[in-house]
């Protein structure tokens, strides 16, 4: 077992990035995933524990022009209670509502939820349908360097992302959704509260002239990583909302879920049940989007 020999809690980003430049620091923010993972032995601490919670400028939710930026250490509770997000991206607030429990929401950060890269991460599907990107920073050649990665390309496998060990996720950014954009989120498990998602579905689309456009669908817990359901999106793009064809549109979209969702059997649910819930949720959210 690795002993923690150094604990750092810097206030400046450049200090933090320098401290992790050797790629050997364990990053701590809310600790809601880190603590149980190290406790159970699924993950080991490295000698250097780096608390990023106190870094100035790493929290907060702000808009600049058309861009929305959520700092990495922003807690799920802050997202849940943010009036601006409630107005421009209510689907994020909705997902935050369903996130674990009050105590965990108060501690867990959005950056941590993304970096943990769980297929069941609750904030991921709604951010995917907002077409979000993550900002990664590192210390190189005597300066802070950043790069922007589309969230869809961020996840590699359960617990793994393209983020390099010396990089810190500093923010998640997305374009302010169009005024006619509607997004919806659903998750489920054997019990409604304090649940790891059995499956989750987020669906967003612009609604103009009685048609769906810019359709984005994301799913969690149906594959090794959260994913954009491109087949379902294609089945829905440009489809009219009129009563005559709507049932057929839903049927095609529901059928297309089989192309995107490849769930597995585990302790929490069977592959069959996950596939079924995806179909139910896609139908439910489509009806809700149409009702808006």
């Amino acid at each position, binding site marked *: *077992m690795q002993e923690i020999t150094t604990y750092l809690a810097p206030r400046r980003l450049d200090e933090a990035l320098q401290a992790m430049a050797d790629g050997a620091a364990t990053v701590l923010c809310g600790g809601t995933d880190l603590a149980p993972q190290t406790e*159970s032995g699924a993950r080991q601490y490295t000698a250097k524990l780096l608390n990023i919670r106190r870094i100035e400028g790493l929290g907060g939710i702000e808009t600049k022009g058309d861009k929305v930026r959520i700092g990495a250490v922003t807690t799920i509770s802050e997202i849940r209670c943010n009036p601006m997000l409630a107005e421009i991206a209510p689907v994020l607030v909705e997902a935050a509502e369903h996130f674990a*429990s009050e105590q965990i929401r108060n501690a867990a950060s959005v950056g941590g939820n993304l970096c943990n890269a769980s297929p069941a991460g609750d904030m991921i599907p709604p951010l995917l349908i907002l077409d979000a990107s993550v900002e990664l920073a590192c210390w190189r050649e005597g300066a802070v360097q950043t790069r922007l990665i589309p969230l869809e390309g961020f996840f590699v496998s359960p617990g793994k992302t393209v983020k390099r060990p010396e990089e810190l996720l500093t923010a998640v950014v997305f374009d302010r959704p169009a005024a006619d954009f509607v997004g919806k989120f659903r998750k*489920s*498990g*054997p*019990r*409604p*509260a*304090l*649940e*790891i998602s059995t499956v989750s579905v987020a669906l967003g689309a612009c609604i103009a002239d009685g048609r769906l456009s810019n359709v984005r669908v994301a799913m969690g817990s149906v594959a090794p990583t959260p994913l954009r359901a491109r087949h379902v999106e294609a089945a829905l793009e440009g489809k009219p909302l009129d009563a005559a064809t709507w049932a057929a549109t839903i049927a095609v979209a529901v059928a297309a879920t089989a192309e995107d969702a490849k769930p597995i059997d585990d*302790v*929490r*649910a*069977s592959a*069959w*049940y996950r596939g*079924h*819930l995806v179909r*139910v949720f896609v139908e*439910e959210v489509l009806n809700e989007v149409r009702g808006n």
Partner: protein
Amino acid sequence: MTNLNVVGKSVLRQDAYEKVVGGKGFPVNISLPGMLHGKMLRSPYPHARILSIDTSRAEKLPGVKAVMTPKDVPQIIFNPIFFMPADSMAIHRDMLILSDTVRFAGQPVAAVAATTVAIAEQALSLIDVEYEELPAVFDPEDAMKEGAPEIHAGVKNNIRATPSFGAGDVEQGFKEADYVFEGTYETQRVHTCYMEPRVCVSDTDSSGHVTIYSSIAHLFGLRERLAYALGLPVSKVTAIQAPYTGGSFGSKLDLAYIEALSALLSAKTKKPVRLEHTRYEDFICNARHPMKVYLKTGVKKDGTITARYASTLCDTSAYSAHGPEVIMVHAYFGLMLGYRAPHTKWEGTVVYTNNMPGGAFRGYGAPQAAFAVESQIDEICEKLGFDPIEFRLKNTPRQGDPHPFNPEWKLGGYALDQCLTKGAERMGWSNRAKAGSASGTKKRGIGMAAHPIWVSGCVGFPDIYEHSGAIIRLNVDGTAYLSSATMDIGSGQNTTLCQIAAEELGLKFESVRMAPGNTDNLPFDAPTHASRVTYSSGNAVKVAAADAKKNLLEVAAIVMEANAADLEVRDGMITVKGAPAKAMSVADVVKRAESPFMVVGAQGPTPTTLKEKGTIMGISSVAPPANASPAVAEFVEVEVDTETGQVKVLRAVYAHDLGRVVNPAAAQGQVEGGLQQGIGYALMEQMLFDPETGACLTSDFLDYKMPTAVEMPSKIECIFIESNEPTGPYGAKSLSEACLIVPAPAIANAIYNAIGVRFHSLPITPEKILAALGKL
């Protein structure tokens, strides 16, 4: 009985604040100077023989003080159950503290004591064990087949016990029936999920005397069983009573490996040794027995039951432990006694497997039985068009009838009829729609279940301890100490007993305090189990308090120059009946009794006038004269989402005849907790295991789903029907276990009413519902 001052009031628990701010009294918080920390190495195999254990690397690790393997522990075969004599003929002894044979995945094979938990854990990884893997069997039906692995030498087909009983001629009874119903009902393995882990600290002195602190539900059982497993006389073990324990629900009624190992590690190291379960270890230490019940019932056209036959297959797991006992309580008090039938027969089979040990769990075999009985009654009523309330009223006993378990007892206070009718009225039972008639995708339904006969303790059960004792001592400030070896496991036992003592003594509730003791200075007490404490320990406390009061009034009579028979006590004041002006406080009387023989006054030393000097106290050690049956009916409304398969319990109405309610708030808490565990049992809780290795897959609260506050109905309505039980203290009977016996069948019946589909196995998961609706 109408003039009660303390009994019947929702007084505040004396330990409430203390618990909220951290609970110093919980055994988990015990720490002794120089204490070492122990850890157990557990087998990864479900069935194996240990060929060799090499501890040399572990012993060299700095900080390791002792390592223990099977050769270091007494090879005394024991049964871990606390509440039966260690040498009882009614139980099977087949366990060792550490054995060369592993029979379930996770069985301890070695133990370490070290200066820190981390070092102890590291030492475990340095112990090299060579196993010879043996074939394992996990399904009890497979275990009985020819050629199945032999789990205990000489136990043919792994069948541990085949008990049976009956009355009348069951074949004749079925011939007399107009209709015969049969069905098989299966229940799953669930864990109690108490909050405080099993944890203990042992301190063994140089003479070999063991002092132990442990999170348990039976102080004297721990002493007896630990002494037995260690080969010591009971007088060489002192079990210290914790002021309160962080939950048990039955799980802390048997000797844990940690208790025996901490005592042995302490003897070896000459230091106190603490062992604490991780949540994983708690999950695999015991669980409710999964059972498969076949039930056949003969009914006449008018709804009279003519005959009942049942058989039960019980997976007792790797060790016998509770299996042979739990199946008897299951059969009598779960399956057969509640509804009258002239002809009955039951046959049980208790089978060894390589699963984790079974244990006691609130209801002790009855929830498994009630799921069968109450589901089948619903099926009978549906088929024959009877109202389920009327059917039950027709086939259940009434107040004054002989007790079906022992006809020498009467159902003294007994109001099942009122539980059924009042509960039905409150729920709006008459508005219940036809099964499956709800429209839309979210369908609502109403269902109910009853449990006519249950226990208030174990009077009448062979080989189960039942007597209780109490000591009451009065203090010079007019307060009283109550000492009893009854363990408060969180349901407010201490408060209830103090209320009974205060009522009997004529003191205010705040004037009676529970004074914890140990097995050296307390009279014996049976465990906190079997819904027994209010009725049985309460009886002993009342007898001790009456004894103390008699002694108090004899002294008061001398001091007040009155006749003891003319005195009464109320709110700490002693008065002469009919002459209220002549009064003296309890404090002043006790002060006189405790005063020195010579008292220095203004005139110098003067002899006191009182000759009868000494501490005023009362003692008892008694069992109640009978075993009063509570009665219960529960009604629930559910909503089934036919798209996702999710079930929500929207409302629950719980009607319970518990005799006198001693503390209404505590009683309501029992009902709510029972419903929560019942919702878990009915809908989501289930221990799962790897089919190859037998390893537990649901050993934390991520994967083992208990209902949270969100899944509880917003409306839980309690109707307490206070029949006056002549054998109970102030007319009290029992409550606890019945609260968990009825919810699962009530929910299953409500689901049937909602969607018209009957489930014969628990838990009723969303997947099962969707499969039954043809969506699979």
